[in-house]
């Protein structure tokens, strides 16, 4: 096959398929922003050092600035625009809004996508760097403020909204647990 520098890809974003031709250099972040007018995902550093561009890829949080668009074909991508269900805000979004978990709002889409995943990762029993005993026998760590802060640390916020963000994540996680409990009951 002769070398080519662009490809036609189909990206599955928020449940919708988008077919477009991309320069191989185009990151998922730039494809979202410049090609698909999905500008909710933000470019803060373009180097994986701030988390503003966080999206979910196959359900896992990912920095879209280091993900080439051409390599994202076939994967399910969820951006901040796809987090809410219809007109109803996701509990994480609602908690950010109610507790003022943002100021300028630029890191917010990334924080929200990250928080959605943090709650799921914790529910799946994943330990973190502040989990004292990572052995499975120790059981899943309680989602303390310290655990939330460590798990959210890949999302920088320069306005200094960390304190209310951590509260918002705790609130949404508690709601998710309560919801799961109801479902089981």
């Amino acid at each position: 096959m002769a070398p080519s520098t662009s490809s036609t890809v189909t990206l599955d974003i928020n449940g919708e398929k988008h077919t477009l031709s991309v320069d191989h250099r185009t990151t998922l972040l730039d494809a979202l922003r410049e090609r698909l007018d999905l500008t909710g995902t933000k470019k803060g550093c373009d180097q994986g050092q701030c988390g503003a561009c966080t999206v979910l890829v196959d359900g896992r949080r990912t920095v879209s600035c280091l993900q080439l668009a051409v390599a994202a074909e076939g994967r399910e991508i969820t951006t901040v625009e796809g987090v809410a269900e219809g007109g109803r805000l996701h509990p994480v979004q609602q908690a950010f809004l109610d507790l003022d978990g943002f100021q300028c709002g630029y890191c917010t889409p990334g924080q929200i996508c990250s928080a959605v995943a943090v709650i799921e990762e914790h529910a799946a029993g994943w330990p973190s760097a502040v989990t004292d005993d990572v052995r499975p026998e120790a059981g899943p760590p309680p989602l303390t403020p310290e655990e939330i802060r460590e798990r959210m640390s890949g999302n920088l916020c320069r306005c200094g909204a960390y304190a209310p963000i951590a509260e918002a994540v705790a609130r949404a996680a508690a709601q998710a647990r309560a919801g799961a409990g109801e479902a089981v009951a």
Partner: protein
Amino acid sequence: MREFDYRRADDVPGAVALLGADPDARYLGGGTNLVDLMKTGVERPARLVDVRGLPLDRIEPADDGGLRIGATVTNSDLAAHPEVRRRYPALAQAVLAGASGQLRNMATVGGNLLQRTRCGYFADVTQPCNKRAPGSGCPAVAGEHRNHAVLGASDHCVAVHPSDMGVALTAFDAVVSYETADGPGRLPLDGFYLPVGDTPHLETALPPGALVTGVTLPPAPAAARSRYRKVRERASYAFAIGSVAAALDVRDGVVREARLAFGAVASRPWRARAAERVLTGAPATAEYFAAAADAELAAARPLPDNGYKVTLMRNLVVAVLSGLAEEAAR
């Protein structure tokens, strides 16, 4: 970033064939380091061979009772795996201490071992750097080197390897598997990275075109009591300024076996064999832990602004080993 060809590999031989002997081609794993380096111009590949889809994403028991970890296993999956957490807790801790949740979801085991230094001179293509541009010089020696190497460096390069994962893997005698057009090969991690010398641009002993396919951890009962501690300039989402992976088997107050490796002090994860020799058979006391650290750090050659790392590593070794000894005594 120049334009490049992109190919997705379906199997290992196909990946190796797609890369071929092209010096301008690179394997693309999670992309967390390579794509960044392409943006800064440090890497300018003409072709990327995407290996994320290869069937190398499993963690399985090895024949000898150890663990075989596929090269495309993500950091997250590695750290979440029950067998890793149970048998090699320091490895899970090391992985979790690295980068961020997002990056750990993307980054792969193979890519982690092959990641490049975060030295600011290496990352800035307008600066000299012997690792990036051989022969251009090393500005760090006379410039900013607060977070540079104190062990095993040379006048040609004082950069440190940024991996956390690799420190724990080194402590546990991991062996790297790779594939080439001429067949497979294996390299113990301790010999995987080349000495700096006057060729800092030559980083690993991998043959040209080789694809890392996995890492095997031999059985290591001592690893069940192990810990990774990392010190950095903020509480999270930062590279280490010093880290220790340690495992300790203590019976009746005497060290039967010790594993010790250092991070952020050398061009590679640094296996502290001199320290291990002092520890083996020694009383499990802070005094001997300090003596072990001193034995290893006797070879340290600090620069004017990174001498604190010698103090830091000594203190970390004592603290981590003391913690493990206390656990053992409980």
